[in-house]
């Protein structure tokens, strides 16, 4: 029914992705945690525990723990690489841009997604899109809680992304 050309597995699992999966960044515990959130996708069991430290509205540290598939793990690892040193607003811009890419649209030209671009192939695998987005949904959740002053709140993000 669907007009999907034969997609090589390698488009999904690019070398950069596999590298992040094998050696995920951001696993080192933070000494200070200003915001945190717990992301969970009951559909596949992917789980992300996210800790942030902040200085004003600037993200100074990111810690990503949890268990998930290669896509989810790589996405979390890339996030840990991308957002330290960014403001809350900048992080939001990345999240938005990445979401666009996952939904088949293109990212704004002025946003450099870095390694995240290697996840572009995921958009051709609709079931896996949620995996790639889970760390980012969890990030949004952590920042929202932090803005609301609930620096120590733990919420469960039951991710509501796109269609299954």
């Amino acid at each position: 029914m669907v007009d999907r050309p034969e997609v090589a597995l390698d488009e999904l699992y690019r070398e950069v992705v596999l590298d992040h999966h094998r050696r995920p960044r951001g696993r080192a515990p933070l000494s200070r945690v200003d915001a945190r959130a717990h992301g969970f996708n009951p559909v596949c069991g992917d789980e992300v525990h996210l800790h942030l430290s902040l200085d004003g509205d600037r993200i100074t540290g990111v810690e990503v723990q949890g268990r998930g598939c290669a896509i989810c793990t790589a996405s979390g690892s890339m996030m840990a690489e991308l957002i330290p040193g960014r403001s809350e607003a900048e992080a939001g811009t990345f999240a938005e841009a990445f979401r666009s890419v996952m939904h088949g649209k293109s990212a704004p030209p002025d946003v450099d997604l870095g390694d995240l671009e290697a996840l572009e192939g995921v958009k051709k695998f609709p079931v896996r899109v949620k995996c790639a987005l889970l760390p980012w949904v969890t990030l949004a959740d952590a920042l929202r809680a932090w803005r609301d002053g609930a620096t120590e709140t733990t919420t469960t993000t039951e991710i509501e992304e796109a269609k299954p």
Partner: protein
Amino acid sequence: MTATAPPRTTLDPSALRARFPILQRQVHGHRLVYLDNAATTQKPETVLAALQHYYANSNANVHRGVHTLAEEATAAYEACRSRVARFVNAPDERGVIIARNATDALNLVARSWGATLTAGDEVLLSEMEHHSNLVPWILLARERGVVLRHLPITDSGELDMAALPRMLSRRTQIVALTAMSNVLGTINPIAEIAEAAHRVGAVMVVDGAQSVPHMPVDFQALGVDFLAFSAHKAYGPTGIGFLVAKPELLDRMEPISGGGEMIRAVHLDRATWNEIPHKFEAGTPNIADAAAFPAALDMLEELGMDAVRAHERDLVGYALERLRSLEWLELHGPLDPARRGGLVSFVDPEIHPHDLAQVLDGRGIAIRAGHHCAQPLMRRLDVPATARASLAVYNDRDDVDALVDGLVAARKYFGLES
């Protein structure tokens, strides 16, 4: 044959007939004249091909599957949802629930939205409703002490709109009406009634089983809240129907059926629900029939719903004219073709509808005889049953002529004068 204006339609029924395999068959040695379209329509070759194609290429369970077939099946299933949303101009495809049939869709509203009602609240129906838009509300009334009211009909078979203001009040929580009567053919002023319903704070539920396949239906332009219809009456497969709804209403509703697909997180003693529309689709859905149905809507869109309506209006006009020339026949419903869909109910006072249908069947003509799932309306019309001929895009004047000849022949058969 009576002289009439030439048809104003752009449809070519005989060319269309070639697309429907069953219409090539013979019944009792006669060509099949299928005039039971309000019960169910026939299916074009493209729908059958889509069904085969699904099973021969992409069959798998939907959602969550990582493998290629599962992905293709999911895409085919979800494509039905967006196709339906587009066809009726729904505000959002998340508002399209794939149900079993129109009846199932109406029960879902009655049970789930109905659960917000309390004793003394009112539901307004009408005297011309199909059982599928009566019994769900009777069940609700029993369970919750809700009061059912019924908009009366006039002697010409139309809703008595003069009675509407006094039937509506702040107690009215739900107005649920058919857009087109399956017995009288009457087309009801849904947009006007929806507005009145909203003024008293009620939601407007429309039984579109007969309207959606036969005239342009625009969910948003009508300003309704819920719209139910069946695929099998719209040239699609049996086994699926739709509830089209405003997403914000669905968000507020509780699921009535539990199982796979409709959940988010399940514990042994509690569970949370998936987002809409999945919340209302428990278990493995009817994937194949959903994959096949868009081909039926494609056909309708290719013809154009305005042209479909024009064709059926012309043809029912011709049928009314010819049937009125049989003086012994009693016709029910409005006589103006502009106010009715392509179906006619009639009674030969001396031949029971069952016998009429039987004699016609001997000539290859399929009509329906009985109460048409509208027993209260039969009582209102004071008939035990009626005969009903109902039209579709593939019917033409020859079919109507065959019907009329058959009605004359039936009189002869039973030794009556005509």
